[in-house]
């Protein structure tokens, strides 16, 4: 894992989030949620700072981050792709869709493309089982996706950029 140095501003943001939860160990999950919302992901250095602020071991923080699939430790791409692997999507071919996305982008689940454009994750059920199999790109939902459509979906985003909303580390 490459080492990163957090900017002073990032340090402040994390400290503020921790303080807003009274630096309480019991609020760890809320602190992590809020921090990921602000920073986009939870690299080791961020977890260390949170552990320090909440006066708990960094091993415990890491334990929670790795337990919940919602938290991630690598930066999300500009367009985060999520493939639903819930039961309905799975039986209607989500795995083939996932395979096709991995092949097209040449990345594994949990990784980002080198240009930072796409990241790939699996999730469990977005509550749109009637549309199975479902793929999400950012907030946009694609239903009844077939492997042949993957190229077209990716192409939609290939040229465009969105304004970076996440705070830079």
């Amino acid at each position, binding site marked *: 894992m490459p080492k990163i140095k957090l900017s002073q501003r990032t340090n402040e943001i994390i400290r503020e989030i921790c303080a807003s939860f009274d630096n309480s160990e019991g609020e760890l999950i809320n602190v992590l949620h809020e921090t990921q919302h602000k920073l986009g992901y939870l690299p*080791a250095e961020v*977890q260390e700072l949170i552990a320090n602020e909440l006066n708990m*071991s960094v*091993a415990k923080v*890491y*334990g929670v981050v790795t337990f919940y699939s919602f938290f991630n430790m690598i930066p999300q791409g500009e367009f985060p792709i999520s493939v639903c692997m819930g039961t309905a999507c799975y039986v209607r071919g989500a795995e083939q869709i996932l395979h096709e996305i991995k092949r097209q982008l040449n990345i594994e689940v949990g990784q980002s493309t080198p240009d930072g454009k796409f990241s790939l994750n699996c999730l469990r059920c977005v509550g749109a089982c009637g549309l199975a199999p479902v793929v999400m790109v950012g907030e946009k939902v694609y239903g009844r996706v077939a492997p042949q459509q993957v190229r077209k979906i990716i192409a939609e985003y290939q040229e465009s950029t969105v304004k970076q909303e996440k705070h830079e580390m």
Partner: protein
Amino acid sequence: MNMINLTIDNRPVSVERGTTVLQAAAQIGIKIPSLCYMKLEDLNIENKPGGCRVCVVEVEGRRNLAPACCTDAAEGMVVLTHSMRAIHARRTVVELILSDHPTDCLKCAKAGNCDLQSMAQHLGIREIHYEGEQSTFREDTSPAIIRELDKCIRCRRCEMMCNEVQSVGALSAINRGFNAVISPAFEMNLDHSVCTYCGQCVAVCPTGALTEVDHTGAVIRALSNPDKTVIVQTAPAVRAALGEEFGAEPGTLVTGKLAAALRRLGFNYVFDTDFAADLTILEEGTELLNRLTAFLGGDKEVKLPMLTSCCPAWVKFFEHQFPDLKDIPSSARSPQQMFGAIAKSYFADKIGVNRKDLVVVSIMPCVAKKYECSREEFSVNGNPDVDFALTTRELAQLINLANIDFKSLPDEDFDHPLGESTGAGVIFGTTGGVIEAAVRTAYEVFTGKKLSRIDFTELRGMEGLRHATIDFDGLPIHIGIAHGLGNARKLLEDIQAGKSQFHAIEIMSCPGGCIGGGGQPYHHGNAEILKKRQMALYREDAGKPIRKSHENPYITKLYEEFLGSPMSEKAHHLLHTEYFDRSKK
């Protein structure tokens, strides 16, 4: 008393409210098998995650089987511990654990001492009906501990010890499902974590997932090298536990047989760390008196309380967690390292051997001692003062390899000059012992009077935090004692907050002190064993002709011939050390 009546296996039993089914059954001689559950009675240590489900029992009127370790007995409860259904479930659980467990039992470091192996045997498992994916975690080696996580059964005993008992926080459960395992943060090596190498994780691991680094091979090589003079020192707590490895009752003292075994193994000189413990008292005791005298003289800068510094895991603990307090512990090296420094200077000169050709081996109840002797400050031009530290368990292994029938060995003595010790040196092996030894000497030096009694029973016991006030001829000296690093943390936080009233504090990392060290024969959750070892050391002390460190004639001689006086420049150079800030802040 609020009593609960229930029946277990058709037998009535009456228990106090809050008693678990497991404990209730034990009261009437029914031993429900358990794996992850562990309780060290009177030490306030309990692991009860209810995770393995080996202890499941059938409870009338309840749909699911109940884990006996974390189900409270209830009025009128009807429990069946060996119904077909319970036995089947229990065996299924163990088979499932075994289906993702390496089957290299014949060559596993834990063979014969593995709780999982015993459980499979106990349940008569002859076939594993499940086949599937196998864990493939990487092996992690550190200076003291090896983690072989394919053998981890997620009982979480190590995590409980590391967090709740020791408050170290090096280990945590990480990931989920099949990938869940116990690990340092970011799956980093233990070596890069805040681990103190106290070895309490090793002491409680039911399988071979956590073991000590094996140095027996290196010691055998040294012993068979004709160009080397190989000497050995053995820590106090070893003599109270080694016998267990050869079938003796816990608490059997095997001091004489231990010396005999070491001699038969081929060590050129068989010495005793107790000698170095006496030396530690002279140095540390003098340092304490110097600080006290300065304090009484009005010196506001003097650091009090003074903390003991014999325990390497404790040293690493405060270097990581309380670096701001690193000037408070005594600068005295541990007995192991004092021994090494004296052996490779004073003794090497005496026998005319170059330090490079002198190999110092120590037998320790501890795994952190392996790390301690590898610390750079304890070497001269890359040559360590102590070359290898073996655990009590490793020594038993060596004795077996050398075809020695331990039980039939005669009692022999240690060699001179580094083998002579007092009762004060012996009790270093138990919680409260170092400070009692220090009081025996400090009192007489400070007051100039002979002690009317030698046994300071107020300093003894098994409570995690203890305190006592000793009257130094009109001057009350307040003493604190902590064993287990979580207890130590409480005393340190008081010091940080300026609330500590103590003049001196003894801290040992392991519950019970060194008798409960991570390198001792496995206690398998039986705290009685630790208490028996403790009593054995006090018996050894009581039977010694000399019981105060400053009366050890060979210590007197060492100062006359070589060191000058305690805290002299030479003593400072060889017997004292400094500490480092290991926090990342």
